[in-house]
């Protein structure tokens, strides 16, 4: 589904470019459950942003479902993010003023769906992550684990083919973290969603189908 070839990314600090990714080759098959590990600062989040079309590589090839993303415009990348990719962040990144239900439904707003449909699908998604009874709560009325479930529901509501999670359990205690991981594993097994999880936790990596390790901008 995804082919990365010699992907490089560097940030420029004044005159000198600072390379963060230095030639990544990576293939991700549909239905994969991939863990990305590596030291802090090794470039994991940068890689995820590129995978998630939030950022463009400085050089290299990125084929998403056979198509080179370099040719897409900013608007087209936005639409691809909306339809094919779901993000889960370490710090949840929910919209604080909205209810859980509204948060989950928000990506569908950009698909111009009628409000009724959006609410129905968001409610179904909340049920799937076990939070049906919290639909009307706002993020600050939910625990960390519950917020992360809402975030996962939001990531999945648009039926993406790729779910990207950047340290999804990093802000949770180990018990809740395990619950979240269970959810990912279940989703991967029952729905066949392709999932990439960035983590520092070897226990999590062990439960994934595959694990890659980053070191200084390269995959080992």
């Amino acid at each position, binding site marked *: 589904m995804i082919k990365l070839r010699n992907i490089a990314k560097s940030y420029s600090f004044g005159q000198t470019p600072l390379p963060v990714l230095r030639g990544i080759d990576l293939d991700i098959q549909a239905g994969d459950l991939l863990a990305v590990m590596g030291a802090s600062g090794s470039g994991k989040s940068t890689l995820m942003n590129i995978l998630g079309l939030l*950022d463009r590589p400085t050089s290299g090839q990125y084929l998403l479902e056979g198509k080179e993303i370099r040719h897409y415009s900013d608007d087209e990348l936005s639409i691809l993010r909306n339809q094919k990719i779901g993000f889960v*962040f370490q710090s949840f990144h929910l919209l604080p003023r909205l209810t859980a239900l509204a948060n989950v439904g928000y990506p569908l707003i950009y698909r111009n769906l009628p409000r009724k449909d959006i609410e129905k699908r968001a409610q179904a998604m909340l049920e799937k992550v076990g939070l049906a009874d919290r639909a009307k709560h706002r993020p600050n009325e939910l625990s960390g684990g519950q917020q992360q479930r809402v975030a996962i529901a939001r990531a999945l509501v648009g039926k993406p083919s790729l779910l990207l999670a950047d340290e999804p359990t990093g802000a949770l205690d180990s018990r809740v973290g395990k619950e979240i991981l269970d959810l990912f594993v279940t989703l991967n097994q029952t729905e066949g969603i392709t999932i990439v999880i960035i983590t520092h936790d070897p226990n999590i990596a062990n439960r994934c189908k595959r694990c890659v390790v980053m070191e200084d901008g390269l995959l080992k």
Partner: protein
Amino acid sequence: MFSIYFTEAFRNLYTAKQRTLLALLGIIIGIGAMIGQVSISMIKGAETLREFSQMGTDVMVFRKDYSDDENDNTQISLIEALELPRYVPSVIAVAPMMDSQGEYHFAGETNWVDILGVNTSLPAVSKGFQLEEGRFFSDLDRDDNLSYVVIGCETREWPGFKDFQGKLLGAEIKLNGYIYVIIGVLKCTEDNFIDEINWSILLPISTMQRQFQSTKVNRLVVRRVANSNHLLVSAQIKQYFAKRVKGLKVKRLEWIDNWIKREKKEVRRMTLLSVAIGGLSLLAGSIGIMNVMLTAVIERRREIGILRAIGARQRDIRWQFLLEAIILSLIGGLLGSGLGIASSYLIAWWNEWQFFVSYQVLLLGVGVSWGVGIFFGFYPAYKAAKLDPIVALRTE
């Protein structure tokens, strides 16, 4: 989609209550000042024009045309003048006037004064004509042996009259050697075409002709039917005199129309000026909006990042912020227009001017606030849309 932006915009504005209120206040005061100024200058302008037309746009002044040599031996005589309404039906009243100067003796004082010969139609042509005390000439006076005078309001303050202890009405005054009896004192008039009555002594025109041994009429003040065409009536009057007196050409003094034209221009100028001055205060309010929106963009960076991650295009973000600015300035514009109109109502009421709301003012209010929202909301919205999603997401 749009309704979502809309409810989102309201929600965001509501959440940032304090800032929203401050921005609203700025725009309310700005638009209020502008609308108030424009409204009051329009009200005032209409008032001035109305006052003037009450005095008489339907009043015309004629006199002999001296620029034409053929005209030299002719003159407007009293009889032709007085018969004018019979031949030109659009003329309601005609007041012939004759002017000269003379010396008066009164209560031991002597002074020069303008003397005006007028007839009993003068009150009929001028709505500004009013008596302070006594009475005006009457047709019944005609065969009297006594000669009467009426004193203008400023003349009343001149030597002799000013400190006169006795009863002014009925007192005798010597004018160019003849004795007259004072029968009335006029109030000051602001009627421009006869305002020299304020500093004159008025005589019946027939008396004046007898005593100055002249039959010449210097001026005709004519009131025409209210809705008649002034050009047509003017032409008819010229024609009338040309027919009655061979070779006589009369000329209309057009300065009243010119004055009105000038006044209208002046009103327009004042209105524009108040738009400009109001616009300055509006500018201050508008910058407030821009400031609020820029602050909102910075404060909501993370939110922008989140929205971009879940699929918002740049234009989605831009619309959302732009809409907020527009809503803000429209609400402010509405309230401000209300405030401005209300304050112009108060000022009009205080000055006893006739109040009205012109649609131009309403259009201006809505249009300007709409424009302000778009113009001053655009830059912040543009900045929000151009934010790098990764940078936006990373802000805490």
